[in-house]
């Protein structure tokens, strides 16, 4: 069994009377690229900040690279890279000064890789950080997080405020560096990390709704279009695993989140009536996320 780079067990965190995270448990396998997905305010950042010992848990625990997050010490951070959309970097330093400042802290800092990353990012070395655009600052943070070849790279909503081109470049870089590094990346937009993620966890209102590998998720979610003999009518009590039900003429379409091809026709006939044809299509990660999110909000 693959050991976990991050193990979260029954995590609770409250801010005032607001439960930011409520009993969340999940695990990020070593070597995985784990996408923590959820709408804004779902508890992604709180979970990540707790994992990084930036804030302490109220209950439960987080283990990062085998260390309780509350015990994470300087040595542990030589193996952990962290990039956040709202990270405060020392604005008065230039890009070159910032990297020179960080170098001595990391025994594994790779000057060649730093050079390559700077080449990729096209960051002006003499420009002060406070004069960089948001996208450039994120690039700098990523450069600083990758140059020491971390065992765990944690990215908290790194794409917020980035234009499409920078996002594309960012993803290319992550793909290039993926390998021995375990990646934990949070986002409210799955489309950005579809090509990278090997695992996904879906979080909403501080609770983890599911966690699985992308392979398994892709296999169990399908968009289904059922063409009926007569006019389609939305069933009163559709199966729980049929989400986002819609009708157009004689066609009923939905997303089946527990897709079972062998049983689908009988089930469709039983719920919808006589079936003429069934079309099945795989669903993009973004569509899975939006469907599930919409369904949860509807239930709420």
């Amino acid at each position, binding site marked *: 069994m693959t050991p976990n780079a991050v193990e979260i067990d029954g995590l609770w965190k409250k801010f005032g009377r607001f439960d930011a995270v409520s009993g969340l448990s999940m695990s990020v396998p070593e070597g995985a690229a784990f996408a923590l997905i959820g709408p804004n305010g779902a508890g992604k950042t709180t979970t990540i*900040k707790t994992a*990084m*010992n*930036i*804030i302490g848990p109220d209950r439960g625990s987080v283990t990062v690279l085998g260390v309780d997050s509350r015990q994470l*010490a*300087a*040595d*542990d*951070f*030589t193996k*952990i890279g*962290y990039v*956040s959309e*709202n*990270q*405060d*970097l*020392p604005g*008065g*330093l230039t890009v070159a*000064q910032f990297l020179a*400042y*960080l170098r*001595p*802290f*990391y025994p594994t800092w790779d000057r060649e890789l730093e050079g390559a990353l700077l080449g990729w990012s096209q960051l002006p070395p003499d420009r002060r950080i406070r004069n960089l655009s948001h996208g450039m600052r994120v690039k700098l943070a990523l450069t600083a997080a990758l140059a020491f070849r971390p065992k765990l790279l944690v990215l908290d909503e790194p794409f917020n405020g980035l234009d499409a081109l920078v996002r594309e470049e960012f993803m290319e870089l992550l793909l290039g560096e993926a390998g021995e590094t375990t990646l934990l990346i949070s986002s409210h937009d799955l489309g950005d990390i579809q090509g990278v993620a090997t695992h996904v966890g879906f979080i909403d209102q501080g609770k983890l709704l599911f966690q699985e590998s992308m392979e398994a998720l892709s296999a169990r979610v399908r968009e289904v279009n059922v063409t009926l003999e007569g006019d389609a009518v939305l069933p009163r009590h559709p199966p729980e695993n049929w989400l986002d039900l819609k009708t157009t003429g004689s066609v009923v379409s939905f997303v089946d989140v527990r897709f079972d091809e062998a049983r689908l026709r009988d089930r469709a006939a039983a719920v919808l009536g006589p079936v003429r044809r069934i079309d099945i299509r795989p669903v993009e990660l973004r569509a899975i996320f939006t469907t599930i999110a919409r369904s949860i909000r509807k239930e709420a």
Partner: protein
Amino acid sequence: MIWNILKKDLILLWPMAGLTALAQFAMAALMAASDTQPDAQYLLLAARLSVALVFLAMVFTIAFAVHQDPIPGTRQDWLVRPIRRGDLLAAKVLFVLAAVHLPMLIADLGGGLVRGFPVADAAGAALIRNLNLLVMITLPTLGFAAMTANITQFLVAGVAYFLLSIAGTIVLNLAARLGGQEQATNPLFWTGVAWIPQTVQRAALAAGAVVALALLYSRRRILLARSLFPAFAVLSALAVLLPWEWIFALQHTASAATPDAPVEAVFDAHAPRYRLAAGETPDAYDMGAAQVQLRGRAAGDISVETQSRRAKGDVTVFIPLRLGGVSAGDILWSDRAVVQLKTSSGKVLFRGRGDDLKLERGDGTAPVVRAYESIRIPALVFESIRNQPLTLQIDYSLSLLDRQPPLSAQALGADVALPGLGHCSTDRDEDGDEIALRCIIPGRAPSCLSTRLEDPASGRRNPETLLCAPDYAPYVVKPFPDALSRFEVETPFRDRLGLATYPVGVGQLSTAKVVITPYRPHWHRTRRVLSPGVRVADWTAEKG
């Protein structure tokens, strides 16, 4: 790691550190200029303004250094870097030492050397001031800044602290007035032991800062630090309410190595009533001039003290005492006299403070001398007890100051180094009726100083003027404006009203000398005067 963080902070804050250093050097230069031209008011004003500027520069430099890597917050970069928290704190402390204290040390040392003081004296005074400010300002500011996330929070918290301090002062004063005390916020301001509550205050605040820094940098316990530091600040403020007995006991302990002296004080039932001198009022208070001249205190403080001492409609009673056991040449100084009048059953009918009592044993005076302790009794109380035989109890906290070898300087135009007094110059004062002796010393002004004019050619001597503002601190308590103490004493040679003539007058000034005798405190003990059958009506003053 420490060096790396320090280097980063120096890169980011060098302009601020430079300005702070510049402000300190400018202040040192202004003080030097002001010392050479003591009558140039604009220089004095500029020097005083520069003190405020240096204070602000220090505070903001410290706060900015801390806020480069703040403790509160969840967005700061250092939290996810391989930075040991102890290293971060060490780097901040080093930065403050380098950016604030090193220039201060250089400025103070330079200030001492420029005025011609020996390196050891100048360096000693500079180091003591540095340590003083480290405890008084740097540590509390470090702690305060570490509890806040940015300068805005720091300023808001600072203003809140300032306003609360004022409110606390008002409340303490009101409570003290209602309780019949004089000054609650600084009841020992005029006494030689004032350094003890001041030191306790500073130590409490610094301890609070150290606790806060430890909590913040080792565990990021922000709420706990934000609770404990103010608690220490409150404790610090309350240090002024430490009982006198404890404070004087501490002073006694600090001087315990001195052998006890056979000082005794007894009620002198056979003494005549006190006779007021011409022009003297029972409320006369003569300590203020010495406080201004020897301690550099603002003249305005005296009127406050005088007013507080001048109770409305009180009756002043002069208790006669016989004082003995004071060695020739010493000064016996009463730091505090607590007077009680009790019935034979022990019921206290009056409890109050005696006024200033001091006894100077000249070389030729008798070993036992008579003195009067004046006490002010509220009129109603006086009327109710005036003819009642009561037990008098006076609890004295006494100090002895021993005479040091006299020093002298030319009355006019002297510019000399005098041992224990520093560099002194003499000149006529602005009114032209006194010789002003101005001294600068890398240390403290003496607790008592007597001066007189003497003409060696004719052998004439003017009467001696004794000034006492005791200070028993083992270190220089006042760290502003710089590491040097300045004092000025004036000795008369002409009566402007023409009522008196001095043996050494204008005609002798060119050959006259100022003879200065400093006194050094060396003994602090308590004594009790206890006498039954005292009727207060017997001891009101007679008009002279």
